């Protein structure tokens, strides 16, 4: 292979360097912590897989994991269909296209902690517009600082508001790439709107939809900032999702060993679910 240009490696170096410091080195530190116990003073004691076992058996972890799956499940079940519906109803040509696209992109441009803070103020009873409206206008008892259900609903609505646009934009990109001839052929073949969706739009959106679901799964499974700012994991532990719990253990209690083991389990679960999903979705393409 004399003719190949080895110079390419040179260009990849900076990226390798970055990735190493960004991901590999911290990752190895975490692995290091996860199998040892430390009491400070740089003294470490070998623990083996004890932390892993302890975490996996703990009720607290299982409860947080359960809440995490519930949260991700609910927001995927809402955002994906809603995103598709919005994408389908957006105009494909004309003046309104850029307007719609900008409106859709807006929520995604807001920093995450700002989103949390916005919704916090928005939803607080007495102070926030939503809180006031629900309690004092509609007369519904709504207080996310006291009521776990209200807290959950607020987090979910916030996430839907923040991230449905991503699904919309990706699906929209898939939809506009379908040539007109397909719609015309379907019209002539007498296909119903449902058939058009099922046999033309959905198959053509499949690739982008896979990416959208994958991104939404990973982001929502690792979500931290917004719920932390909004509810801080409360009331009680009712909205303590995995990442919030992890930070509590690591920084609140400074249990570095268990926290490290928990991060690795967390990481493994995210990776495994994403991989299984990807394999299933792309199986037909082979």
């Amino acid at each position, binding site marked *: *292979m004399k*003719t*190949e*240009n080895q110079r390419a490696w040179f260009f990849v170096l900076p990226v390798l360097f970055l990735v190493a410091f960004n991901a590999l080195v911290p990752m190895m530190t975490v692995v290091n912590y996860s199998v040892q116990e430390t009491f400070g003073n740089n003294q470490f004691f070998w623990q083996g897989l004890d932390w892993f076992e302890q975490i996996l058996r703990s009720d607290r972890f299982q409860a947080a994991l359960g809440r995490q799956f519930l949260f991700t499940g609910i927001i995927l079940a809402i955002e994906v269909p809603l995103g598709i519906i919005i994408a389908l109803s957006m105009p494909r040509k004309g003046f309104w296209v850029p307007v719609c696209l900008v409106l859709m992109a807006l929520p995604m441009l807001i920093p995450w902690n700002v989103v949390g803070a916005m919704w916090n103020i928005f939803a607080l009873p007495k102070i926030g517009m939503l809180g006031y409206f629900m309690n004092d206008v509609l007369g519904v008892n709504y207080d996310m600082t006291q009521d776990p259900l209200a807290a959950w609903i607020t987090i979910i609505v916030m996430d839907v508001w923040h991230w449905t646009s991503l699904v919309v934009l990706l699906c929209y990109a898939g939809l506009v790439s379908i040539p007109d001839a397909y719609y015309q052929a379907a019209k002539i073949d007498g296909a119903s709107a449902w058939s058009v969706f099922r046999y033309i739009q959905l198959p053509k959106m499949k690739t982008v939809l896979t990416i959208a679901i994958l991104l939404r799964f990973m982001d929502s499974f690792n979500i931290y900032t917004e719920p932390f700012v909004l509810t801080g994991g409360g009331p009680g532990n009712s909205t303590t999702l995995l990442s919030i719990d992890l930070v509590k253990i690591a920084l609140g209690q400074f249990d570095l060993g268990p926290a490290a083991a928990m991060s690795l389990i967390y990481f493994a679960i995210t990776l495994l679910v994403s991989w299984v999903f990807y394999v299933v979705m792309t199986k037909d393409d082979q």
Partner: protein
Amino acid sequence: MIELQDVTKRVGNVVHIKPTSLKLAKGHFNVLLGATGSGKTSLIKLMAGLDPMASGRILLNGEDVTRLNTQKRQISLVHQFFVNYPHMTVFDNIASPLRVAGMTRSEIQGRVEDAADILQLRPMLNRRPQELSGGQQQRTALARAIAKDSKAVFLDEPLANLDYKLREELREQLPELFAGRGAVVVYATSEPEEALMLGGETALMHDGSVTQFGPTSEIYRRPNNLMAAHVFSDPPINTAPVTKQGNEAQLENGARWSLEGAPAALSDGHYTVAIRPHRVLPVRQSDNDVELKGPVLVTELSGSDSSAHFRLGEVDWVSLSLGVHPYNVGQEHSFFMDPSHCRYFGEDGKWVA
């Protein structure tokens, strides 16, 4: 001259170009003719330096350019799709490679105008590509290739997306445009008709390799294997199994004729006979003609020609004749072929006589 020496291309374990050696000369068109996926574009990309080769060498005017970047090879490439810079005027599009080459303003002006005159783009020089028709857009791309001093010009099915009539006109102008420009011109196409019109030399491509190379009309008349005969025929050449015994050849349906010269010298056995549709006619031309009689399946009448598809034993044959001939579909008709136009191929597909 472009010289390829045992050039190959692989992507992973898939071979895209099998070992290929070829000498493409200046002064005439070098046509790469083959079906979609036969390797024409792959070969052009190798010559242009756009894809890495797995092995082999490429010489351009005697200089080894194997390891040279595309930018340094001094070549032009015109694509099937109209590739122009959308934000530039036609003038700037044509001038862009000249500016990169660092020519003076007046020199650029002169060259762009010359190229625009040849391709009748003068009135459009200040427009942008999207305001032009497909033909004008492709002429802009061609003008860019002409204005630049290239050692080699690669045209990859440049007319494929144009109207039939426009294609016919440009096809005729192209050889004149590039005549005397000192560049090696390589033209890829899947249309046999185009190769014939452009003349020059043709390399037939099939499945990643060049199966035959030589002067275009010679290859058309003497394909060295059955595949070459199929690739280089429009309408498709008629082929049928034939049995040779003594001085006679016989088709499966019983039609027979006596052999003379080279075909007569073949050893007895089974061969494939090939004859072009315009050599199978509905009227007898001479006493030597062989009568082929079969039911007509489909007829096509184009005004200038009549064609009939008819069945002979297990094989469908096509006759193509000038003028208007009435056929009745479903009924038996007699067709006549002059056996001197028959080509014979062995069981391995190689030309034998």
